[in-house]
C-alpha cells in the first residue's frame, strides 16, 4: 500500500479521497460482512428450533451431558474479551499505543482460554464416544452415567400419536417451551432411558442434538480461531505503531467481528447449556 500512498499517510490507499473516506468504506464493508455472518448462522439456529420443537424431551435430556459451569466460564471469558476489544478501539482512537497492545493481547489470551475450555469439553465428549454423526446407541448410553439415565424419564409415544402432540405447539421458538410443558400433561407413559420400551429412534434423536451441538459450537469455534489470527496480525501492527487516531479502521472492524462472535455465543449458551 505504501507504494501508492498519499505521501505522509502510508496506509491511505490511493483510491480513497482521504482517511475518513477509507474508514467509512471499511466500516460499511464490515457491517455487510456481519450481516452475511448472521444469516450464515441462522441456518443452524433454524435447525435447532425445528428439532427442539419436535423433540423437547430429547433436548432436555441431552443438555444434561453439557457442563453448565464450563459454559458459564466460557461466557465470562468471551464477555471479558469483548470489553478489552472495545477498550482497544478506544485506545486506538486516543492514540494510546501501549494500552492498545495490552488490550489486544488480553483479547487474544481470552480467545485462547475459550478454545482451551472448548477443547476440554470436546475431548471429554469424544472420550465418551459422543462424536459428530455417531448415532450408535451403546456409546450414548454410557455418556450420562447410570444414575442420571434413571432419573430422567422419556415420553414414550403411543402408536405414532406422541409426535403430533408435540408438533401441535410450534409457531415460534418460544412455543417449543409450551410444547415442552404441555407434553407432560398428556400422560404418555414415562420410561427411564435404559428401559427397552424407549426405542432406538428416540436414542438416535439424542445424536441429532449432539450433531447440532457440534455444528453450532464448532462453527463458532472456527470463528474464534479466525479471530485469533486477525487479532495477532493487528497486535503485530500495533507494536510497529501503525495505528493513529486517524487510522484505526482495522482495529475497529476486527473488534466489530469479535463482538459478533461474542453475540452468537450469548445465544448459544442458554440454548445449549441451560435447558431444564
Amino acid at each position, binding site marked *: 500500500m505504501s507504494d501508492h500512498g498519499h505521501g505522509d499517510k502510508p496506509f491511505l490507499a490511493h483510491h480513497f479521497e482521504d482517511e475518513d473516506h477509507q474508514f467509512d468504506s471499511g466500516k460499511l464493508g464490515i457491517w455487510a460482512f456481519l450481516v452475511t455472518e448472521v444469516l450464515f448462522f441462522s441456518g443452524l439456529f*433454524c435447525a435447532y428450533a425445528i428439532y427442539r420443537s419436535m423433540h423437547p424431551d430429547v433436548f432436555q435430556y441431552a443438555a444434561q451431558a453439557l457442563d453448565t459451569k464450563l459454559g458459564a466460564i466460557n461466557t465470562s471469558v468471551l*464477555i471479558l474479551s469483548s470489553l478489552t476489544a472495545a*477498550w482497544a478501539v478506544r485506545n486506538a*482512537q486516543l492514540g494510546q499505543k501501549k494500552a492498545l497492545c495490552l488490550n489486544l493481547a488480553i483479547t487474544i489470551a481470552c480467545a485462547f482460554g475459550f478454545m482451551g475450555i472448548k477443547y476440554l469439553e470436546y475431548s471429554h465428549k469424544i472420550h465418551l464416544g459422543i462424536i459428530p454423526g455417531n448415532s450408535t446407541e451403546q456409546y450414548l448410553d454410557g455418556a450420562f452415567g447410570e444414575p442420571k439415565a434413571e432419573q430422567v424419564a422419556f415420553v414414550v409415544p403411543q402408536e405414532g400419536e406422541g409426535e403430533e402432540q408435540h408438533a401441535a*405447539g410450534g409457531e415460534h421458538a418460544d412455543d417449543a417451551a409450551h410444547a415442552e410443558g404441555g407434553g407432560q400433561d398428556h400422560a404418555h407413559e414415562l420410561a427411564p432411558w435404559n428401559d427397552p420400551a424407549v426405542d432406538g429412534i428416540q436414542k438416535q434423536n439424542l445424536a441429532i442434538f449432539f450433531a447440532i451441538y457440534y455444528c453450532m459450537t464448532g462453527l463458532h469455534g472456527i470463528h474464534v480461531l479466525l479471530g485469533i489470527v486477525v487479532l495477532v496480525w493487528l497486535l503485530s501492527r500495533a507494536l510497529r505503531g501503525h495505528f493513529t487516531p*486517524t487510522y484505526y479502521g482495522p482495529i475497529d472492524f476486527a473488534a466489530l467481528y469479535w463482538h459478533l462472535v461474542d453475540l452468537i455465543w450469548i445465544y448459544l449458551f442458554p*440454548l445449549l447449556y*441451560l435447558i431444564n
Partner: protein
Amino acid sequence: MTATDHAAHGDHHEDHHALPLWMLVGTWGALMGLTLLTVFSAQFDLGAFDLPIAMGIATIKAMLVLLIFMHLGFDKGFHSLLIFGSLLFVFLFISFTLMDRGQYQGDITVKDSEKLLSD
C-alpha cells in the same frame, strides 16, 4: 477526540468519538450480571417461561453489545438498518419454518413418505 497527542488531527470529524471508559466497564458489568441472572434463573423450573426468559435475557445482552460495544447507538443509522434488517429476516426464516412444521408435520407419516419415495 479530546485527549490526543496528535493535535494536528484534533479537528478530525465528529463521529470518531471514543466511548468513555465508565460506559465500557459498566456494559461489561451489566453483561456479567445478566449472565449470572440467566444461570441462576435456569436453576428453577418455570415451565413454559424457561425459554422466553432465557431468550429475553440473551436479547438484552445482545442489545448492550450491539448498541455500546459495537457503537451502533452512536453510529450511522444505515449500519443499524443493515444488521437489524438481517435479524428481521432471521426471525422470518425461523418462525415461518416452525409454522410450516407445526401445520404439516402431523400429516407426514412414515407410510406416506415411503409411498412417495417408491413412486
